[in-house]
C-alpha cells in the first residue's frame, strides 16, 4: 500500500472505532439541565449549543478577544487553622480571565445565578454573539454548568474548555487573578480559629 493509502486506512479505523469509545465506562451523557451531582467527576464530551474546544483551538480563538470565564474554586481558609500560619492564597488563570469562584454548582441560589448572568451581560456589552469561553480544571462540572447557563441565556458563541487552566499552563503562562466582586471562597463556618 502507498503511504497515503495507509493513512486513509488509519483514519478510517479511527473513525470506525469512535462509536465504541462513546460506550466506554467513562462515557457520561449530558444531563437534560444543569448538573447537580458530584462536581469533580467525569464530564460529557459535549455541551449542546456550545462548542467544546481544546487548548490549540482556544489559542486560535484568542484573536477574536473572547470573554474568558474561570469558575475554578477559591482556596478557603480552614476554620481551625492556627492563627500563626502564613495564609496567602492566590489563583492563577489564563491572562485576561474574569474569575467567578463558586459559580459552578447547578443549584446556585437564584440571586447568585442572576448576578452571574448580569455581570456577563455587562462584560459582553449585551452582545449575545460575542465569543465566551468557560473553564476551570479537568473533570470539573462547574464550567460545563456555566456554559449551559450561557447557552440557556441566549449566548450563541459559547465555548467550553474541559482541559481548563491545567491544559493551558502546559504551554502557556498564567497570571494571578482576583475574584469578581461578590464572588469568593465559601465563608468559614466560624471565624474564631484556634
Amino acid at each position: 500500500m502507498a503511504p497515503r493509502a495507509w493513512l486513509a486506512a488509519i483514519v478510517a479505523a479511527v473513525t470506525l472505532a469512535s462509536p465504541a469509545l462513546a460506550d466506554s465506562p467513562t462515557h457520561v451523557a449530558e444531563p437534560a439541565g444543569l448538573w447537580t451531582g458530584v462536581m469533580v467527576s467525569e464530564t460529557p464530551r459535549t455541551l449542546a449549543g456550545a462548542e467544546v474546544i481544546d487548548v490549540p483551538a482556544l489559542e486560535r480563538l484568542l484573536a477574536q478577544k473572547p470573554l474568558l470565564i474561570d469558575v475554578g474554586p477559591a482556596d478557603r481558609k480552614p476554620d481551625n487553622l492556627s492563627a500563626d500560619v502564613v495564609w496567602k492564597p492566590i489563583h492563577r488563570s489564563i491572562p485576561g480571565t474574569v474569575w467567578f469562584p463558586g459559580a459552578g454548582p447547578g443549584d446556585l441560589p437564584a440571586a447568585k445565578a442572576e448576578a452571574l448572568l448580569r455581570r456577563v451581560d455587562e462584560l459582553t456589552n449585551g452582545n449575545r454573539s460575542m465569543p465566551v469561553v468557560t473553564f476551570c480544571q479537568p473533570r470539573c462540572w462547574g464550567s460545563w454548568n456555566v456554559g449551559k447557563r450561557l447557552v440557556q441565556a441566549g449566548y450563541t458563541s459559547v465555548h467550553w474548555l474541559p482541559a481548563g487552566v491545567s491544559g493551558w499552563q502546559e504551554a502557556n503562562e498564567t497570571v494571578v487573578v482576583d475574584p469578581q466582586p461578590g464572588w469568593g471562597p465559601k465563608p468559614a463556618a466560624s471565624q474564631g480559629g484556634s
Partner: protein
Amino acid sequence: MRLPIAALAMVMATAAPAFAANGDEPERQARWQDVSEAIFGDRPIEPGDELIAIEAPARAMDAALVPITLKVGRPEDVKAVHLVIDENPSPYAAHVRFGPAGDPSELRLRVRINGYTNVHAVAETSDGRLLETSVFVKAAGGCSAPIGVSDAEALQGAGQMKMKFGEMDRATLMIRHPNFSGMQMNQLTRTYTPARYLDQIKVSYGDQTVFELAGDISLSTDPVIGFGYDGSGEGPLTVQATDSDGSKWEGSFPAPVSTN
C-alpha cells in the same frame, strides 16, 4: 490526504512551549518576595546554590505526594532548613531545626503542591545567615485532593510510627496521620474536613536532639521523613509528635550499631 498532515503540523506548531512557565517570571519573583517577607521579615536572604540544593520532580505524578529532598553542602555550618512552596495558600511547609545529634546533609519529605510553583529551600547557618535555592515544580491540586476514605477511616491508627534504618546512620520515619489540610471537600456532603495536621515532630538519639520539625498542612498524608543522625552516642531513636488538635504520640526505636 494533505489536510490532516497540515492540521497536525499546525497543532504541533501552536503547542510549542514558547512561553511555558519556568519560575523566572516577574510575577513569581514578586510572590517569593511577598511570601519570604511574611516568613523571614526583613532578614536578608542570599543566593545559596553552593550550600543547599533541592531534588524534586519537574513534573509530579501525584500533586498530593511530591517527594522533596533537601541536600546541604556543609552540614556543620547549618542549624536549620526551611521549606517554602511559594504558591501554596499556606506556603511555609516545614521548618526543621537540627540538634546536636542532627545531620542536615540530606532530608527527605513528601509535600502537597497546589499549583505550578517555585519551591524554595532556605538554609539557616550557625551564624544566622539565610541562603536560598529554588526549583520549579509542575503539579496541581495537591492541597484539596480528597483522601479517598471517610474522615473516621483516615484517622484510624493515627500516630502509629515505623522507623526504617539505612546505612551510614540514615533512617526513615513514617507516621500514620491523614494530615487533613482543611481544604479537602467531601464531595457528597460538600462540607470541608477540618484541618488536622502534625505540627511538631521531634526526633532524638539518646538524650540528644536530632531535629525538630514544625509542619503544616502542606505535608502529605502519612508523613515520611528521611534524615541522618549522629549515631556515635547511645540510642535509641525516640520520636515525639503532636498534631494541631493537641494529640500526642511517642515512639522508640533501637538503632543498629553505628556504621561510622
